[in-house]
């Protein structure tokens, strides 16, 4: 505990120290991008696009991920180092991970991959599997989301941006580490003189995840658990995933600046070792998924008239998921089992679900002189889900399980940006949301259920305003506001698939989001540079869509209820000494409270003004890196980097309810170290990482222990030719 407090203080000191080093010099804070490529495990404020986005009026964090390409980080682990963002993983490689932005998660935030929503792309193509090398930068929009990301993102959005260069490049890496983990990545891009372009990305993850966990032991012969906890090696948690993203097309033609067709193929297979508490163990359960995603991109600048730009992206996704539980066995953590009399360790299943998602997003923007910018964006999505294998799904299913569900959504956005001078600009936007759902509804008048397909529509309008002002060239303030919505899903609109209960008039979940940011960046004598950003966030979220069971009415229904207020602070600070040393950190505190005084049926709630349970509210990161240049030859860099992750302990349940004994997720503190040797200007790289050096018992979620100390080594070849 004392140790924790020490780190906690250290975190504060490190985060705030640079902020107090006042200096009025106003030198541009641009850091040389070429050099920053060689800085390991540090986020560098690169110039160009990253800087441009960070300086927009939105509360956005854009990071250049290229400096991280020698690490074995996944995209989610990278996101975890951004202020206000928290990743919660349930286990090792391939485990479920939940992303949150300022306390919003799940359906409240949206994730985009090169501007295309990632919803419905399948579990085999998700950020937790993707190597950081796939991305060039990551953008996190907090609370207020530009119309270009046309979606009902109530709490914010994340956009992963991949390489978009006309140069020839090759990036090949392989990593091996503890728990028999293998990760590799190949990316290659080339554009010919006559405008033919080709890009290929392929990656692979493999791990036995056989790390040790501490839990109780089941005696399979008499069905009882030990009173004590023991350490066990995970024995049924193999995971592998493979993906390929290929794009080909033409660039720089009179009728198209870019026209690409692409295909993404991905698959995964995961053994399922435990249930949602560690004590329950499986020895044969598994899941499989695969996705096939063809895509089309078209871009044209100066379409018909000067300064009118058009882009179109379309994807179609076909996802198949299988859940397999066929063993007639009951296992314990020693790997011993007893044969049962019936199929299934849990529920017998060979189930298969197919889902198809289509996205079409079109964007038109127009610049009228240097002061007025207009943009129109439209996103259409269509999501269809169907269970396919009737026999295998039969045990606990209904007829409705096998009926098709369709959710189609259209979001039309319009924005206007006014930039009277380089010192300030402001923008207003509107978003018009429409949703149309189809699904089964029970229309029976007897004791045998009868389902019919029904259809419903829903629409609403959101809006927002953003503004920024440069007090000096080093000091910027920004403010932004959005009235944001999350539209009800097919299941919510149809209630519990019962005709009467689904008829309740639902409102969309909505939130008034306000941000106020101040940031400062400065460089002295091209030697010392600092960056500091502090953001205040305010979120007033209402009308949560809640499932409600009322015995008077039979089945379950959905109703709007709830009011949650979030007042928070995100701070980030960073210091650079030339390109030799850097240190920085961030801290997020979010005070998320239930402000609803009464229950849905009018009873007084004991947890009025309680902190939201099971949501981390204080967390941060610290990192530091040191680089030695030109050792044993010009263009060589040796670096050592350090990272610390801290999450303050939090309650799993409402505090006022569980006074008799709280269940807490304990404070998490972990340290990682990496050493990188980069030769010939980054062409040949070897890095060595130790994660969780102290071998701490880490939990992001109650009971679900994450891996202990691990070692990884990564070899990487990187080739870049700017000439073509």
């Amino acid at each position, binding site marked *: 505990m004392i140790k924790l407090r020490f780190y906690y203080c250290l975190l504060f000191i490190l985060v705030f120290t640079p902020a107090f080093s006042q200096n009025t010099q106003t030198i541009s804070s641009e850091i040389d991008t070429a050099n920053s490529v060689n800085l390991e495990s540090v986020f560098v404020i690169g110039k160009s696009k990253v800087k441009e986005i960070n300086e927009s009026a939105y509360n956005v964090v854009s990071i250049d991920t290229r400096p991280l390409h020698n690490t074995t980080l996944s995209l989610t682990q990278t996101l975890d180092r951004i202020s206000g963002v928290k990743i919660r993983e349930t286990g090792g490689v391939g485990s479920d991970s939940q992303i949150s932005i300022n306390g919003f998660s799940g359906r409240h935030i949206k994730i985009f991959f090169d501007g295309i929503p990632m919803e419905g792309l399948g579990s085999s193509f998700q950020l937790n599997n993707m190597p950081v090398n796939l991305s060039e930068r990551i953008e996190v929009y907090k609370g207020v989301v530009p119309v270009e990301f046309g979606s009902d993102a109530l709490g914010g959005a994340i956009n992963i941006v991949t390489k978009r260069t006309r140069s020839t490049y090759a990036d090949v890496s392989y990593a091996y580490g503890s728990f028999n983990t293998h990760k590799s990545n190949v990316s290659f891009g080339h554009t010919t003189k006559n405008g033919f372009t080709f890009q290929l990305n392929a990656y692979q993850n493999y791990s036995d995840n056989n790390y040790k966990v501490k839990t109780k032991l089941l005696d399979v012969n008499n069905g009882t658990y030990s009173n004590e906890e023991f350490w066990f090696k995970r024995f049924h948690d193999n995971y592998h995933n493979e993906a390929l993203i290929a794009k080909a097309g033409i660039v720089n033609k009179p009728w198209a600046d870019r026209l690409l067709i692409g295909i993404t193929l991905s698959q995964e297979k995961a053994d399922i070792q435990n249930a949602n*508490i560690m004590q329950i163990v499986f020895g044969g359960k598994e899941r499989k998924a695969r996705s096939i995603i063809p895509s089309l991109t078209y871009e044209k600048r100066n379409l018909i008239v000067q300064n009118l730009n058009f882009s179109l992206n379309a994807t179609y996704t076909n996802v198949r998921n299988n859940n397999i539980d066929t063993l007639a066995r009951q296992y314990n953590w020693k790997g011993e089992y007893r044969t049962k009399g019936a199929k299934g360790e849990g*529920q017998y299943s060979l189930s298969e679900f197919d889902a198809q998602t289509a996205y079409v997003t079109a964007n038109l923007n127009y610049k009228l002189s240097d002061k007025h910018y207009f943009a129109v964006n439209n996103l259409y999505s269509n999501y269809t889900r169907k269970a396919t294998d009737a026999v295998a799904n*039969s045990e606990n299913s209904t007829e409705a399980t096998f009926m098709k569900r369709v959710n189609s959504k259209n979001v039309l956005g319009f924005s206007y940006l006014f930039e009277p001078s380089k010192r300030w600009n402001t923008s207003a936007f509107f978003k018009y949301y429409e949703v149309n759902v189809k699904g089964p509804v029970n229309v029976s008048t007897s004791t045998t259920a009868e389902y019919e397909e029904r259809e419903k529509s829903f629409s609403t309008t959101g809006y927002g305003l953003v503004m920024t002002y440069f007090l000096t060239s080093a000091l910027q303030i920004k403010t932004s506001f959005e009235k944001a919505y999350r539209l009800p899903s097919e299941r919510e609109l149809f209630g519990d698939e019962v005709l009467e209960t689904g008829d309740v008039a639902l409102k969309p979940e909505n939130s008034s989001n306000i941000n106020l940011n101040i940031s400062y960046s400065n460089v002295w004598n091209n030697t010392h540079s600092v960056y500091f950003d502090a953001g205040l966030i305010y979120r007033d979220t209402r009308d949560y869509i809640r499932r409600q069971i009322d015995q008077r009415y*039979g089945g379950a229904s959905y109703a709007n209820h709830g009011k949650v207020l979030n007042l928070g602070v995100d701070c980030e600070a960073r210091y650079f000494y030339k390109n030799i040393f850097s240190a920085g950190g961030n801290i997020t505190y979010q005070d998320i409270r239930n402000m609803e005084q009464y229950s849905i049926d009018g009873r007084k709630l004991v947890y009025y003004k309680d902190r939201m349970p099971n949501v981390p509210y204080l967390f941060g990161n610290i990192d530091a890196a040191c680089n030695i240049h030109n050792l044993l030859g010009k263009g060589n860099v040796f670096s050592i980097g350090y990272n610390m992750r801290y999450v303050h302990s939090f309650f799993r349940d409402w505090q006022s309810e569980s006074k008799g004994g709280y269940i807490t997720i304990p404070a998490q503190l972990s340290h990682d170290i990496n050493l990188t040797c980069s030769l010939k200007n980054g062409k040949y790289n070897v890095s060595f990482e130790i994660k969780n050096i102290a071998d701490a018992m880490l939990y992001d979620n109650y009971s679900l222990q994450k891996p202990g100390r691990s070692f990884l080594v990564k070899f990487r070849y990187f080739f870049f030719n700017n000439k073509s």
Partner: protein
Amino acid sequence: MMTKKQIKKAFLAGFIGCLALSFASCDSNEYNPTPTIGSFFLSVSGETAEYIIQTNNLETGNLSISDNNGALEKSGYTWIFNENPSVAVGLIYNQGDPGVCLAYGIKSDTTLTELKQFQIESRFTSYGFFDKYALTSVGGVTPVDESGNALVDGSGNVRSDGATFNFFDLKNLVLTSKTITTLNITGNGDQATFSGIVDMGNGEFLTGMVVSQPKAAGAGGGASSGTITYPDSVWVAAFDAILNLKRIYRDDRISYSSGRFRSQYYSQIGKADDGSVYVFSGSYESATTKPCGALKINKNATEFDPSYYFNIEQETGGYRFRKVWHITGNYFLLELYNDFTITTETAATQYGIVNMGTQKFSWLSNGFPAKNQITATGLPMAHDGKMYFPIVTQGNDPAIYIIDPATASAKKGISITGAKTLNAIGRLIYQ
């Protein structure tokens, strides 16, 4: 990381003596040399977690949800209470995955003590007590041979006529499971799902049977039975402790004995104090021509009592019932549907008392909430000749209603401020 069980307030101990005397007065024993030390056990749900609250008083006053012993690891336990040995068993099997089931007793200072954690093998749709066991059952499972391969029918399709029973031995605190096949169990080619467990007291238990065709792929409202071929017949099976089928009781005067809601099969059999077993039928099936009613199996009898038939539907004015609980003597509490026609979603929030001896039915209305006020109910407890029934009414905290079967009236007992639901109530005795 784990829930810390708080030591129960010591000051309560003083009251226990007095209260114990009042408990003792209801015992059939003429004298009680040692006063009973006991405590009521309430299972309550908050918004995110489930809790246990102990109390010695169910009659008056308020408790708060925060008066609990700490959050439980999971939510959704089904709590059942055994008298001897006195054990509270929390069964759980959520979303297709096993859960960690809990067994509690109490110590001499009435603090709760966790006796054991165990893992049941399968989900369950019915449960009860038999001999020294807490017993659960589920039908519609895929049976396997000794090497774990699925059994197939004549046409090569995977069978789903298995019924798995979990036996939790409350004396030795161990768990065993067994799966039997039910194909053609009644001799008419159909299979069965079991509903309700009644201890015969002679090493056998009775269980109602829902006899049906195998469940068609992708049909059946989440339940384990398929089409009911004989909706105008009732079957009850008698098993011994190793699941040998001893006999089947059959009759055509009522429909099958089970209340159904989605995947659940609610018990509609119960034993009166004189040892005779009443087999009710709520006539759930739309196809049945039989009114809801009850038959009787006399103590140790091998067939239904041919002279006993109770047409309950006639007494209720056409309302059918879904759940049945024994209160005391010949009194049973019925949970009735709110409409005459039953669909898969019809609500059931009205209640009545039947005296199975005199065949008298009385609506429970005096002092009891109206049917359009009840938003949730919990598992009731029969105690001291009364029924203690957890009820949530619109806009009010969950409360216990104390039902007097003789007068078919009720009064409101304690309520739990801030709780969402009161799931179950039972009593633990220090032994």
